[in-house]
C-alpha cells in the first residue's frame, strides 16, 4: 500500500517539542554539483548579450519616437532573456543544496512564569495616576479627530431639493429652451434646469409617450397629454437612466438593469431599484416653452440612510 504523505510523523500533540540545535543554525544535507558545460556557459553569455542589446534598443527606439510595439517588444524580450540567463547561470554554476534549519519555538509551557521584561519598575502603586494620563491622552486623541469635520459641508437637507424651481425653464444641454413640439413622437430629450446645465442631481429626461399615461402618473404634470418629465438619477445607485425602449415605453438603467415603466409614472418593474423616478411638475409658459412648476415632490436618486 503506498503511503501518502499523511503518514509523516506530522503530528502535533501535546507539548511542542524543543528543537535540538540552536535556532538559526543551518546544516547542509545534500549538495549537488552541476557538471561543467560549455553549452550552458554559451547560453548564459549569449542570452546576456541579447538582453543587453534589447535593453539598448528599447532606450534608442523610445528616444527616437518609434512605435510602441517595437520598443515595448524590445524591453519585454530583454527582460525575459535576462531572466532565463540568470536562471541558467545559477542552476549551472552553483551547487543545488538541500539544507535544514531548526525552527524557533515561541510558546514553551515547560517554562515557569514569563519573566518581566523591564529592569526598572515604578515606586509604589498609584493606578489612578496612570489612568488619568491614559484617559486624557485618549480624550485628546479623540479631539484630534475633529478636523475630519472640515472635509465637507455639514449634512443638512441638501439632498432634499434640486435646482428646479417654480418657473425654471427646461433647457437642453446646449442651453436652448424647449417646446413640446420639438420632441419627436416616441422620442426622448435629456434636459436640465435653465442655469444649471450639467447639475447632476437635477438631470431630467423628457419623454413624448406614444400611449396615454396612466396612474400613478400625475396628469397635472403632463403636457399635451403625452409629454412628461422625470428625474433620471436612478433611485438605486444614482446612475443616469438614459436608455429608453420606445416600444415598451420603459426606461432602463445600464448599471444594474433597473427598469422603470414610463407610462405608469416610472415605477420600477425590474431590478434593484425600489422607488419610482420622481416626476417633474411640468407646464408650458406664455411663449410655449416648457417650464417646471415646482421642484420634484419625492426624493431624487438613491436614499440616504
Amino acid at each position, binding site marked *: 500500500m503506498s503511503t501518502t504523505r499523511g503518514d509523516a510523523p506530522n503530528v502535533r500533540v501535546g507539548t511542542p517539542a524543543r528543537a535540538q540545535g540552536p535556532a538559526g543554525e543551518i546544516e547542509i544535507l545534500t549538495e549537488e554539483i552541476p557538471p561543467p558545460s560549455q553549452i550552458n556557459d554559451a547560453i548564459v553569455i549569449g542570452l546576456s548579450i541579447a538582453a543587453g542589446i534589447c535593453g539598448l534598443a528599447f532606450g534608442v527606439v523610445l528616444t527616437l519616437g518609434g512605435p510602441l510595439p517595437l520598443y*515595448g517588444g524590445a524591453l519585454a524580450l530583454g527582460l525575459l532573456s535576462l*531572466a532565463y540567463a540568470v536562471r541558467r547561470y545559477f542552476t549551472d554554476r552553483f551547487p543545488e543544496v538541500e539544507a535544514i534549519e531548526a*525552527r524557533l519555538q515561541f510558546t514553551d509551557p515547560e517554562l515557569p512564569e514569563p519573566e518581566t521584561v523591564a529592569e526598572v519598575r515604578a515606586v509604589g502603586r498609584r493606578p489612578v495616576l496612570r489612568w488619568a494620563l491614559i484617559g486624557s491622552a485618549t480624550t485628546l486623541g479623540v479631539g484630534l479627530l475633529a478636523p475630519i469635520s472640515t472635509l465637507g459641508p455639514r449634512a443638512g437637507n441638501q439632498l432634499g431639493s434640486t435646482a428646479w424651481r417654480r418657473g425654471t425653464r427646461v433647457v437642453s444641454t446646449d442651453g436652448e429652451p424647449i417646446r413640446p413640439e420639438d420632441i419627436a413622437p416616441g422620442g426622448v430629450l435629456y434636459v436640465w434646469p435653465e442655469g444649471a446645465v450639467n447639475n447632476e442631481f437635477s438631470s431630467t429626461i423628457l419623454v413624448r409617450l406614444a400611449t396615454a399615461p396612466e396612474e400613478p402618473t400625475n396628469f397635472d404634470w403632463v403636457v399635451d397629454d403625452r409629454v412628461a418629465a422625470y428625474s433620471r438619477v436612478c433611485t438605486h445607485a444614482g446612475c443616469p437612466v438614459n436608455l429608453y425602449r420606445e416600444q415598451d415605453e420603459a426606461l432602463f438603467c445600464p448599471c444594474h438593469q433597473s427598469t422603470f415603466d414610463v407610462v405608469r409614472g416610472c415605477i420600477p418593474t425590474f431590478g434593484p431599484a425600489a*422607488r419610482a423616478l420622481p416626476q417633474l411638475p411640468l407646464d408650458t409658459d406664455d411663449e410655449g416653452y416648457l417650464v417646471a412648476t415646482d421642484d420634484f415632490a419625492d426624493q431624487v436618486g438613491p436614499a440616504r440612510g
Partner: protein
Amino acid sequence: MTPLFALLFDTVDSRLGLRPGTKKSLNKVFPHHWSFLLGETAVVSLVILVLTGTYLTFFYRASTEPVTYTGALELYAGRSVPAAYESILRLSNDVPGGLLFRRLHRGASHLFIATTVLHMLRILLTGAFRRPRELNYLLGIVMFTLILGEGFVGYSLIYDSLAGTGIRIAYSTALALPIVGQQVAFWVFGGQFPTGEVIPRFFVLHVMVIPAVLIGLTGLHLAFIVRQRHTQFPKRGVDGHAYILGKPLWPSQFAESATLVLWMGGLLTAAAVLIPWSDVALSGPYVPGEVGNNAQPDWFMFWLDGMLRMVPAIEFTVLGVTINALFIAGLVLPGLVFGALIVYPFLEQRVYRLRGDWHVLQNPLDIPLRAGFGLGTFSAILFMSAAATSDQLSRITGFPIEGVLWFFRVTTVVAPIVLALVVTRYSQRRLARRDLGVAAQESGESQILAGATAARD
C-alpha cells in the same frame, strides 16, 4: 565573492558590523514549493507599481477643472475636457513611452490583486494561518482590503465615463450608511456629488496614503515571516515542526527571486504591448448625467457589482432610518464576507480544539470545516463576480437579461451551500476511510488529521 563585491562589503561592514547578521541571513533556509512564490509575486508587482506609478505621477494632473487639449490626438483637438482626463490623453498620446508605462501600471495592478487573491487562497486552504501566524493572517486581510481600495481609487483617477460612474455609485453607497451616511459621504467626497474635491483626494489616497500604509504593512508582514519562519508542506521522514527543510537564501532562493523579478517584468511588458489595459481615448471623459452601456467596475470589484445587481428591490424606513438594497449589497454583505475571513482561523481553532504551534501545512480535504468554508466562500464570490457580467452574458447567449439575473440569484444562493456540503461530506468520508478524526480525544488534546499515527513525547 568577487573581489569588487568583497571590497564593497568590507567597506560597509567595517562601519556597521554586518557580517554576523549577513551570514545568518544569507544561509536562511526556504522551503520548496512554487505556491510560496505567490506572495513574492505580489511584492514584486507592488515594486513595479511604485516605480511606474512614480513616473505617471510626474504627468498626471489631479483636477477636474476644464482644460483645453492641445496635443496630437485629432479626436480631442482643441476640446475642453477635465484636467485629469486631459493629462491622461497627453501622457498616452504625446509622451513617448507614456502609454506603455500606463499599461504596465494597470497590468501590474491586475497581477498584484490576482496574485494576492491566490496567495490568500493558498494560505486559507493550507492552514498557514494557524497559530502562531494568526497575526500575520489578519495583517494580510487588512492589506487585501487596502489593495482593493487602492485599485478602485486608482482607476477612478482617469476620470473617464466608467470611472465617473463608479465614483457616483461609491458615493451612493456611502449615503446608504444608516444615520451617518450623508455626513460621511460629504466628508469623503467633499460635499454633494460631483465636487471638484473627489479627484484630488483620491489622488492623495492613491499616491501617498495607501501606498505608505501598504508598504509599511508589507514590511511588517515580511518581518513576521522572517521571525516566525515559513511554513512548509509535510514531508516523510522530516519533522516539519522542528526543522525547516529547503534551500538556502544564497544562492538558490536568490536565484529564484532574481529570475522571478526579471521574468515578471518581461511578462508584464509583453502584456502591455499586446493588451490595451486602460486605453481610454475613445470612451471620453466623465460628464455628469452621461453613462455608457456595459458599465462594470474592474474585475476585482465584480463581486460587489454582482451583489448590487442581484439583491432585490428593498427599501424600508424604520425609526427614521432608511435601509435599502444598496446598503445591504454594498456594505452588509461584503462586511459579512470579510468578517467570515477574519473569524475563520479562530473558528477552526475553537471547533477542533487545537493547541500549540503549527508549522506544517495541511491538505484542506483532510479538514472538513476548512474544505467546506473554503469552497463555499470562494464559489459564492465567483458566482457574485459572474453576475456582474450578466449583460455581456445576456448578449452572447441570447437569453434575456431578466432571465440571466434570476439564474444568478438562484445559483449564487444555492450552489455555494450545496458545494460546501458536498465537499464537507467528502472530506469526512475521506478521513473515515483512513480511520482518522478531527475531534478532540479524551485527553483533551487534538490530533492533526494528515496522518496522525503517533504521539509526540
